[in-house]
């Protein structure tokens, strides 16, 4: 067993791990942070996307002990109390959520994009979200939400 200190949503969390746990397993099974979804577990679907140091990455192929000292942000860390993050709000406003399973991952990829580039082109949005698969195929509404959230984030 090894002591592992993670910074998740700006909170320091001390864990005692075996070392072979993925970040996805730690989030869901050790910390009950089930907002990050688990599906393919082989880096194909994007439902497990979180942000590490501002970049969208896949928690299913990240060793938890390997990201000590990094800033980990999950879907639970976006809202400010009862006030949703502009991207979360835009997904609701634009009806971008169908079954909803892909949405936490989609939102994390969208936030990572808009923090770097609040006015992305359609090509840049598609580039940033190309690792997130929506089985409902609700992409047009998702793209609309990203564009709108970007405008709001730029204004704020």
């Amino acid at each position, binding site marked *: 067993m090894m002591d592992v200190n993670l910074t998740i949503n700006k909170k320091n969390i001390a864990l005692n791990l075996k070392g072979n746990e993925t970040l996805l397993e730690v989030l869901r099974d050790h910390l009950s942070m089930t907002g990050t979804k688990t599906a393919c577990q*082989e880096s194909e679907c994007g439902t497990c996307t979180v942000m590490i140091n501002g970049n969208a990455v896949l928690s*299913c192929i*990240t*060793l938890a*002990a*390997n990201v000590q000292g990094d800033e980990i942000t999950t879907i639970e860390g976006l809202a400010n109390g009862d006030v949703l993050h502009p991207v979360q709000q835009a997904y609701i406003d634009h009806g971008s959520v169908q079954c909803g399973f892909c949405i936490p991952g989609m939102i994390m990829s969208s936030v990572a994009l808009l923090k770097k580039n609040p006015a992305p082109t359609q090509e840049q949005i598609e580039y940033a979200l190309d690792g997130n698969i929506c089985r409902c195929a609700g992409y047009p509404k998702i793209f609309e939400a990203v564009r709108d959230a970007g405008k709001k984030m730029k204004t704020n």
Partner: protein
Amino acid sequence: MLLNPLMLYLPQTSLEAAKLYKELEDSKVLAGGTFLLNSMKLLKTKGTKTARNILSLAKVEDLKGVTFQNDILTIKAMTRINELFESPVLEGHLNILHTVCRNISTNPIRNMATVGGNLTCRYTWTEMGAVMIALDAQMHFLGADGKEDIISAEDFFKNAARSEKLFTHVTIKAQVSSRVVYRRVKKTLHVDIPLLALCVKTDIKAKQWYNTRIGINNGVAFAQRDPVLEEFLNKSSSSPDLGKEALGHLTTAIYDTRSSEYKQHMFRVSLKSAIEEIVRG
């Protein structure tokens, strides 16, 4: 648990990592993890043993970054694909690397995968090998004694991408006047690994081709050059039919061994269009 029990090592410097690389038995190097962790998970589901010791390079700061000095581009092993894609130092020097990075897998993978991992993971279908061969890149390896070996990318892949030492960085001489074109074909619509990748680099003076290097990745063997095609092109002048004529001068075994008809066809379409793009300037 998705992975078998393992012992994780987190060195802080490249020399410390090189020493561990030599010392550790039953070990694998963890760079971005996009190949390694998936393969370890897959092996576990099959009941196959996986490496006990994992040497992570995540915290080795001197293995990160891209620089351009004295006409030499240096890409450190732990540079993420998207970091290379976004790097301003490529501007005007080796823009082809933008194209290569743009076409690798998906955004979260590009945020995780590293140049070092792509070059040294020993999967035959990775993208960077053919490009590095065409650009005559030099690969640098660090031993436990602190001594560095420099091997051309061509020789590294000829040696089946094996090394006793730790890969630290790759250097490429800027070839401002050279023309470079890259082509990649996906395996299937839904499986975004390359069926094939190729890179054509040449210099042209008064329409005459010279210093041509062709890097080919057929996914079956490690990336390699096509000497027959290079020789033909180095005796050729730019003309609208050059792409078509070149298809009669291939080392056919590279393109056709264990290739489906579709793959053989796509190789020829890709080569022809790459040469025609260079001709058009």
